[in-house]
């Protein structure tokens, strides 16, 4: 059959969801908003401080305890520089990466700003050195993970 005769029908999926963050994640987000602090919880069995805060350790399958202030400094473990526009995602270029905050045993994801992205290969080389970064909170916070970004401690 000729392509002109083949029928397609447009469709759009637009389902509404309302995810319950739960008390633990809510407390984490409230602390971002009201205290500009990043908290973790600790597993009694393996001793890891988990960031972001979780109510249970899935490796040991037991509840966590405590509420531990971590950071604001930390190490940028891995990163990428998003250089292409993907539909539905923010305009490039921007850096995202995982940071192990001081006092934490797991790394947390966020954007890294304040990096000169004029030459991407040069920027990447500098960030590859597992640089130290600091969490920088915005003045207007909403209790979402985007309330802070990471910035390098010494300008690269």
């Amino acid at each position, binding site marked *: 059959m000729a392509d002109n005769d083949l029928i397609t*029908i447009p*469709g759009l*999926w*637009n*389902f*509404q*969801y*309302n*995810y*319950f*963050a*739960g*008390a*633990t*994640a809510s407390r984490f987000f409230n602390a971002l908003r009201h205290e500009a602090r990043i908290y973790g919880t600790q597993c009694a069995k393996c001793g890891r401080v988990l960031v972001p805060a979780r*109510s*249970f350790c*899935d*490796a040991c*399958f037991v509840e966590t305890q405590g509420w531990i202030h971590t950071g604001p400094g930390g190490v940028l473990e891995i990163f990428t520089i998003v250089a292409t526009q993907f539909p539905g995602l923010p305009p490039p270029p921007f850096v995202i990466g995982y940071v192990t905050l001081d006092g934490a045993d797991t790394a947390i994801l966020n954007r890294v700003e304040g990096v000169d992205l004029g030459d991407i290969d040069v920027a990447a080389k500098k960030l590859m050195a597992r640089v130290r970064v600091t969490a920088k909170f915005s003045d207007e916070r909403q209790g979402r993970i985007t309330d802070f970004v990471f910035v390098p401690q010494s300008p690269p």
Partner: protein
Amino acid sequence: MPRCFVHGAGLRMGWADMQFSLPELIYQAVSAALEDSRRHIGEIDSVVLSAHDLVDGRSLSSMVTAPAAGAYLKEEIRLAEDGLAAVSLGSAQIEAGEAELSIVAAWGRASEGDHEHTSRAMLDPFMLQPFALDELSISSLRLSEWIARHGECRESRQRAVAARAGRAGRNSRSVQANVRPRVEFPLHASEAPRFADVAAAVILGRQESPVCITGVGHSAESGELGSRKLGAMRALREAVSRGLAASRTTIEQMHLLQLPGPTVPDEALALEVLDLAAPGEAFEMYASLAHINPSGGGESGWCFPTVGLLNFIECYLQLTGQAGDVQLADRQRAMALGVSPAGAQIAHAVVLEAA
């Protein structure tokens, strides 16, 4: 052939509890099942899960949820299918000697999601979606076919509704909130199920315990809605007969039958299909047979893909004398049924026996 035994169960059923995220509810249900079985997470070899991405609102839901179900560094498979299929696969792994002790879990949080729209999205985009049919529409069509043969039978339908409501009311596990999917004529709102947030888990094992899985049965129907005789419930009927054959029992020997619904007519009409009610007597028999859905069926709580596992857990609780105010006196043999969307196009049956 090694058999498969049930070692414990855990259940979290509620509605819109903002204290807990979905992974936390799953963690609670699985932890409760482990505790009930007096076994430890370290002894688990395998995890078989039932969850659906569009129910969870996450495009690969088990990434976040499987670890909450105890899957960390374990063999794990997730089915996008009714929870009873996970029970069946879990028992196959044990029968094959691949696992000694397994977690089987299913979940669905109706309060987070958008059942009406995700349900409509399963129907053929070209032929059926323009008419905004959804899961409950298929239940309506099935009832209308029955009514064409037997009449509206409002009184006996009301008796069946009252019986189901009474059973659910006595079942301490029932969801309290009264949120139901919209239904269309000829279904009445009281015949619809109640939505629930469900996280459920069982522990299956090779070692002996008081409850054994003695047989499973599965079947399916065509995907063409127009070519199916909805009232004949062919998939359900075949799954049941295969399960009974595998366990070498008859339906009369079942002290308990947990049917998946979701509506009262779906539950009642199954009795005619299974020869437990004469044609036209479905609702009368449903109301009078105490061993059919003593839990209250869809009135106690409903959320795909958990129903088959909920039914399995009810059977387990009954056979171990833990069913509380809905406990039946006879508790030797039970059958749990689970079905897929599109009006039970796929059906699963599992027979349990007390030692």
